[in-house]
């Protein structure tokens, strides 16, 4: 089954005519994603390759039945694009944009209350259900269909872990980058709930970072409700306190959200925490009794 995306997911690309939008549209289509439409205001009626472009998301949905959207729109216009997608009834919005002001995301979160849209990101590499559908900028070929779910706050580190699992012969059901910003849509907690319910996922890998409370919330859920094994890695154990290490989310201050506190919380909840990302594949193999 995989979570969130499957082979039937129909995708619209917002910002399809921009250089990144166009490049990754082609990459996604090549991977097998059903990219059914693009949106760029004022470019309705044109096409990118064979993909029809519309002026509004509403038109795209009406004409193509798109259910998911990928947003490749610069930060000043990105929240407008998210709102438009939600309003048009898009069920899954993946926002790749990096650098959206926090105040704008407060408004988005507010707007989303009571709505059923799933927002992934912003500032995410995206989401992929290997062999079925990819909405994002990750290299598709390193993934392999399988039964391990992955969720992460970090893009490049996820690739390393996926690559490792694939080489070990362990495939993935779905890999979700939740994004590195302070305010995001789906969190580790939401993703764990989805993986717990998914009958094609046997175990989950969490790749966390210093800062925030997402890992702690995941630990609490795991302890109370989860039956599947979870393996976690937290980056940033040697990060000096009070310094920004690249992600807006990856700040440690005041002794909360630091790597050691997070590791302790996760371990106490019963999650297997690896100290070194190189151990993830073998640890997953051992919790799943794969030899």
């Amino acid at each position, binding site marked *: 089954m995989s979570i969130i995306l499957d082979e039937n997911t129909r995708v619209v690309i917002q910002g399809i005519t921009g250089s990144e939008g166009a490049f990754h549209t082609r990459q996604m289509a090549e991977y097998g994603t059903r990219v059914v439409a693009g949106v760029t205001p004022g470019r309705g009626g044109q096409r990118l390759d064979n993909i029809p472009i519309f002026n509004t998301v509403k038109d795209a949905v009406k004409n193509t039945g798109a259910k998911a959207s990928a947003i490749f729109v610069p930060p000043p216009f990105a929240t407008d694009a998210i709102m438009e997608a939600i309003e048009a009834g898009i069920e899954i919005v993946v926002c790749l944009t990096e650098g959206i002001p926090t105040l704008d995301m*407060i408004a*988005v979160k507010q707007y989303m209350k009571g709505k059923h849209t799933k927002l992934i990101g912003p500032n995410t590499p995206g989401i992929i259900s290997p062999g079925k559908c990819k909405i994002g900028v990750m290299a598709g070929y390193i993934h392999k269909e399988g039964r391990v779910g992955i969720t992460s706050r970090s893009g490049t580190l996820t690739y390393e872990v996926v690559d490792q699992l694939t080489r070990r012969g362990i495939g993935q059901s779905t890999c979700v980058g939740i994004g590195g910003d302070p305010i995001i849509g789906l969190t580790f907690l939401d993703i764990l709930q989805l993986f717990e319910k998914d009958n094609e996922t046997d175990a989950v890998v969490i*790749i966390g970072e210093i800062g925030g409370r997402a890992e702690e919330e995941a630990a609490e859920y795991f302890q109370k409700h989860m039956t599947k094994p979870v393996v976690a890695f937290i*980056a940033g154990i040697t990060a*000096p306190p009070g310094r920004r*290490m690249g992600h807006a989310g990856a700040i440690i201050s005041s002794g909360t959200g630091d790597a050691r506190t997070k590791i302790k919380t996760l371990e106490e909840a019963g999650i297997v925490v690896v100290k070194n990302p190189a151990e993830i594949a073998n640890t997953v193999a051992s919790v799943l009794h794969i030899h």
Partner: protein
Amino acid sequence: MRLHEYEALDIFEQNRIPVPRRGVAGTMHEALHVAGEIGYPVMLKAQVLVGGRGLAGGIKVASTPDELKDVADALLSSEIKGLPVRKILVCEKAEIAKELYVGITVDGYSGTPVIVVSTEGGVLIEETAKTSPEKIAAIHIDPSFGYYPYQARTILRMLGLKQQLIAAWTDVIGQLYHVALRYEVIIAEINPLAVLPNGGLLAVDAVLEVDDSALSRIRFPLPDRVDRIENLLERRGREIGVTYVDLDGDIGLISSGAGLGMASMDIIGEKMKPANFLETGGGITADLLYRCMELVMMKPDLRAIFINVYGGINPIHEGAKGVARYIKEHNVKIPIVAKALGNHQEETWEIFRAAGVHVVTEAATEKAIERLYKLVGRG
């Protein structure tokens, strides 16, 4: 972007938050002049963008002009946690009857602003949060509704305060919330908010950190962002558009992605010491990596460099060309180990190898760092 205390106090004053009489001084003579206008005793506070300033000796009192000369000279020639003190804030030394706390930040989980207040302000506020949580209260603000004074009044009443203090404090909270919105801050804090003997309030310290992603659209004057980075290497990093954090080791690091960079730093840290953290972000070009090499090599006594990049959105083969060009032009002798995976990896390896870089083709960062460890002669 974190503002200096004197910059934040100016913004507070413009927004009717009571602040001390004060002035900024870059020399002992300026400090003497400001103190003469305010009247003794005065506080002298080092203006450096680092936490724990008071405990590091950055806050002093002067009761006479002679004393001030000594203290100001000493502060202005000192460093606080590695940062040179270029300016000091000279301000009135208020008589403080009680110290309160008020802070505003964004709760990432609920996606709403949150106002935190405590009747026990001061340097031990974090201890108080752990030991006496009942002395701290939080008000979550519904963004579509906004902040209304009754929310603060209700909470302060519950903390058992008297009417006069509740009224004054509510006013300060409202103004601080206003500042937080206008300047799009991710942290606004007054600690301590001093209660004076006459019952009035005074913002004795001020913290404002503006959301970097919002800087270009804030309509109020703000100081230059690059200018204020004291560390030359970190400033250079900002100029070329990468995140660079100066550390005290001798192994240089260039990585794409914060997570991969932090993991690399952690693994290096097990047996060696990283000289820096450097994260390129998603815009790798040959020129950018050339500049990254230049930046990392600025650090003296470097023993080796570790490059850890992934070719997802980034054209890493382009980046490799920049590294190779730097090595050739500068005849780099220290060992460089590169792990490069993803799109265009074979091409990237070829370019690196031709430039004399030790290429590790395995996926595990750990393997690459083992190689590095052997090369620097400690393993």
